């Protein structure tokens, strides 16, 4: 190769130069064409509605008196809306309790699976993942039955030992009951992500650790865990966003315990009720943006905290 290049130095270089000049352009066009379908959908189905919602959020349309530009009024109202801020507080509490428990469970299951010391690993893996394949609405309905005070396993158990049935859907227990459903649904999903990350760790590292005399627990804590950090961060960010978007479970439980859920149990539920039952689309759009800002800040904080940890 080098010989051939040397003998035909002149023309080749020129041709190569010419090609090089042409390259970025043609590549660019082809690349653009390849991403075009994505861009069209992305702009049409994501950016455009977002801009439209932003536009809507600056107006106030009344049943009587029409539509008028109100600037940031909807946003100011939103920040003072106690139903909304209480909803944010509620999902923040949910996040603080549910996400660590779920990620810890997912991590433990992923490590157990990865250790290769479990019987029927495929069954184990699928068994934990299956709840994720159950649609959220179905899962919430199913848990609604399980939580039931008049029938359901817990009510039957309480009946058998002659105590009043526990109320899983009361004002003080609702958030935990929802957290339980979320944990049940999403642990498997997070486990799969972490398990996949574990499988991609080169085995040489384990061998090296073994040679250095590290046992299974030590390897898990000091080799696997640090290498899992990017995957864990990914899971954490997904869970943060998921928590703030909590909707289906409270929406379903509202039919069983409307006295607890009400209109604004979670911010998303509140936005939905404002838009579709109260006809306050403009205000709902503004609250959606406020919610987006909160999610952005919290996600950023999670990433920032994790990077700090890494630097240490």
């Amino acid at each position, binding site marked *: 190769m080098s010989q051939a290049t040397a003998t035909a130095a002149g023309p080749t270089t020129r041709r190569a130069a010419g090609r090089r000049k042409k390259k970025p352009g043609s590549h660019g066009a082809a690349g653009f064409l390849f991403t075009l379908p994505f861009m069209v959908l992305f702009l049409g189905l994501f950016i455009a509605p977002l801009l439209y919602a932003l536009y809507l959020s600056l107006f106030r349309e*009344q*049943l*009587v*008196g029409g539509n008028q530009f109100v600037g940031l009024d909807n946003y100011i109202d939103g920040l003072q809306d106690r139903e909304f801020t209480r909803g944010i507080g509620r999902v923040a509490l949910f996040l603080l309790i549910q996400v660590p428990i779920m990620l810890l469970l997912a991590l433990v299951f992923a490590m157990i699976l990865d250790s290769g010391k479990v019987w029927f690993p495929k069954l184990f893996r699928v068994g934990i993942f299956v709840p994720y394949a159950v649609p959220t609405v179905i899962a919430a309905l199913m848990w*609604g*039955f399980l939580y*039931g*005070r*008049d*029938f359901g396993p817990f009510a039957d158990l309480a009946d058998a030992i002659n105590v009043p049935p526990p109320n899983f859907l009361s*004002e003080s227990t609702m958030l935990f009951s929802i957290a339980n459903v979320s944990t049940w649904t999403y642990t498997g999903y997070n486990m799969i992500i972490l398990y996949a990350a574990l499988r991609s760790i080169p085995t040489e590292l384990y061998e090296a650790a073994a040679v250095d005399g590290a046992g299974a627990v030590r390897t898990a804590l000091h080799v696997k865990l640090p290498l899992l950090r990017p995957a864990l961060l990914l899971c954490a960010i997904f869970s943060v966003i998921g928590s703030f978007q909590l909707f289906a479970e409270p929406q379903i439980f509202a*039919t*069983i*315990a*409307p*006295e*607890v859920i*009400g*209109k604004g149990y979670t911010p998303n539920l509140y936005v939905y*009720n404002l838009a*579709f*039952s*109260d*006809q*306050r689309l403009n205000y709902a759009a503004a609250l959606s943006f406020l919610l987006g800002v909160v999610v952005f800040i919290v996600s950023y904080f999670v990433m920032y905290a994790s990077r700090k940890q890494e630097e240490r």
Partner: protein
Amino acid sequence: MAAELKKPANLTLWAWTPGTAEAVQMFEKAYPNINVKVQNVGQGDPHYQKLRTVLKSGRGLPDVVHMEFQYIPSFTLTESLLDLTPYLPDDFLSDYPEWIQQQINLNGAIYGVPWDTGPLGFIYRKDLLDKAGIKTPIETWDEFAAAAEKYHRANPDSYLVNMPGGQTGQWLGLFWQNGARPFSGDPNNLRVNLTSPEIREVTEFWDKLYASGAITDDADFNDAWYQGFARGKYAGWISAAWGPIFLQSYTENSKGKWRAQALPQWEAGQTVSGNWGGSTLAVLKDSPNKAAAAELARWILQERQPVEMFSYDRFLFPPQNFMLESQEWLNQPYEFYGGQKVNQVYAEMADAVDTGWEWTPIHEFVATQGDDIKARTVDRGEGATAALQPWQDAVVNYAQQQGLTVEGQ
């Protein structure tokens, strides 16, 4: 007009009542040139939400829509409904009892053809009440309260009735019976008075029963509630004429043991009732086939063949005078009620529904907010009365936000 109906037309009808498709087939036989597509886009709230959405977008609009009485002012406020007067016979209104006329005839225009109504009554398990030594029928609310206490003492696991804090439709029916008139439909002079003495009398009555533990406040129309009837947790229900339609599949074991009676009265010897539910067919203003659409609504809700189908086969409670006066219908025995001729009971109630009740043009908010606040205060043991002022404030606040003028504000 007759010529207009001979022209070929395509109509879309949005409704959720069982039997609609059957009635439409009868209509298509009578008008072979008119082709009707029946769609069920959801029952109650989802239906109105979808309707609002298509009205806003202006695409995919149906011609004829299911419209409950309480929603008519909300959709006339947005000028979405067609005044049917030019398309209906001159004596149309006289086909219905007066209180029903008032529900559809607003500001001199007719916005819907009545489909069914829900005069309130009380249905109960006669076997259970007999065993507890309760004399039926229960005539006054005082007797009702005493019966509830007595019944629960005799049956610690069972209750005479369950009264959800949230179910605003049912509560409004009871306020209605007691002569309360909390709303007016005029957006330029909206009246909202949810704290009147007539309303307080009702909520305080029920709060006493909640406090004594003689009744429950479980949310209704969910599985636990249906099972409550199946398992005999609830021995009765303050219900509209359509009530048993919902209970039939859950009460196989108690079939024939149920009875219906008039709503208990505030004063002995009176006969007054309120209404819970009931609907009409309305025509959208933007329908390109107004005459055909109006005729569809009129035909399936006024001609004998479809009306009898709805009344006899689907157990809808009819609004038409000719049905309410039909001896054959009045004397129809029902298996669910152990052969009782319940139509007579409810026909009497329908006749006793007080006139002059109006709805606000923001009913969805009134109802969802009422559900929300009352359910919470009742659940916390504060009672339904504690919900009235916050409910009133929320409705007034929303009405003003929406640019309506509220009386006295």
